[in-house]
């Protein structure tokens, strides 16, 4: 005997309620039920929008088109959703790919920035940023500094540090050499830290 909610060894595991709900919604959207389609958007639009907006800032003019692309792309590939993870995670995965496509296109087309001598003497790094500022303040300041950077610096930094892409991966996707990406990142980091320390 085992109590309710416990799984006996070898007993087939029942799908979690969320998984059942996700699968039902997917089936209804694939069946082109308009109300299910509306629910699909209602459920995930806020998360997708928040993510895309954060990754494209300050270019808010491009956010809405990209959000729409995410949902259209989700529809195109919805039949391949297998329910192994949550539907939200699956949709957010598509959003990440779309953002990455955006970075790739923008960085591939970007002209190099000539900003003079690098590695100039900057004040020593502040070791514990989070101890000095509340997280909200850090977020706000990060936004401000990122927004003030040239676009290719901003995209390179967000792609590398917030999306976790490696320089090698970025190089492959943009058609640039790894060295070129590393140089771009080095300039972007220096510029970011300089603006952070000097109030932009």
């Amino acid at each position: 005997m085992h109590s309710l909610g416990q799984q006996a060894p070898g007993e087939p595991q029942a799908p979690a309620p969320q998984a059942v709900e996700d699968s039902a919604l997917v089936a209804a959207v694939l069946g082109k039920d308009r109300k299910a389609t509306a629910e699909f958007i209602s459920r995930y639009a806020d998360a997708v929008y928040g993510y895309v907006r954060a990754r494209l800032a300050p270019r808010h003019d491009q956010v809405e088109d990209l959000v729409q692309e995410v949902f259209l792309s989700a529809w195109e590939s919805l039949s391949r959703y297998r329910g192994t993870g949550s539907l939200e995670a699956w949709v957010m995965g598509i959003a990440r790919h779309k953002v990455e496509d955006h970075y790739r296109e923008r960085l591939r087309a970007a002209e190099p920035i000539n900003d003079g001598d690098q590695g100039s003497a900057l004040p020593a790094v502040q070791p514990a940023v989070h101890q000095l500022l509340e997280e909200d303040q850090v977020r706000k300041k990060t936004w401000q500094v990122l927004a003030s950077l040239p676009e290719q610096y901003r995209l390179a930094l967000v792609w590398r540090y917030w999306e976790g892409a490696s320089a090698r991966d970025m190089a492959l996707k943009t058609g640039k050499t790894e060295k070129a990406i590393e140089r771009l990142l080095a300039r972007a980091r220096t510029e970011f830290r300089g603006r952070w320390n000097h109030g932009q």
Partner: protein
Amino acid sequence: MASDQDERFMQGIADVDLTASEPAPARLKARVYSALLQRQVETGPLASLTESHRCGHELCVFEQLVRISPVGETAKSLNICRVCHARVLAESMENAPIFWNGCPYVEFKNS
């Protein structure tokens, strides 16, 4: 070395979650919904309103009229939102003056 310091600095900053907690504008949800229905229609008709009703979804007043009309299921599978003024208003205004139940564009405004 300055570049190592820059790297450590960025790694510290990158712990901050940049994602905005701001909800998506209703206007955007409306626009995405219209685009998605349009895309669905390109590969064949939508599920009929009879089917949606049977699944327990609330229909708007116009959809109800179509559902109870003596027309075939083909007509009940059309994307009637495409010709509805609520769609036009919802796609252009954040607080569109549409208030009836069962309309997805109203739901987007209230969500």
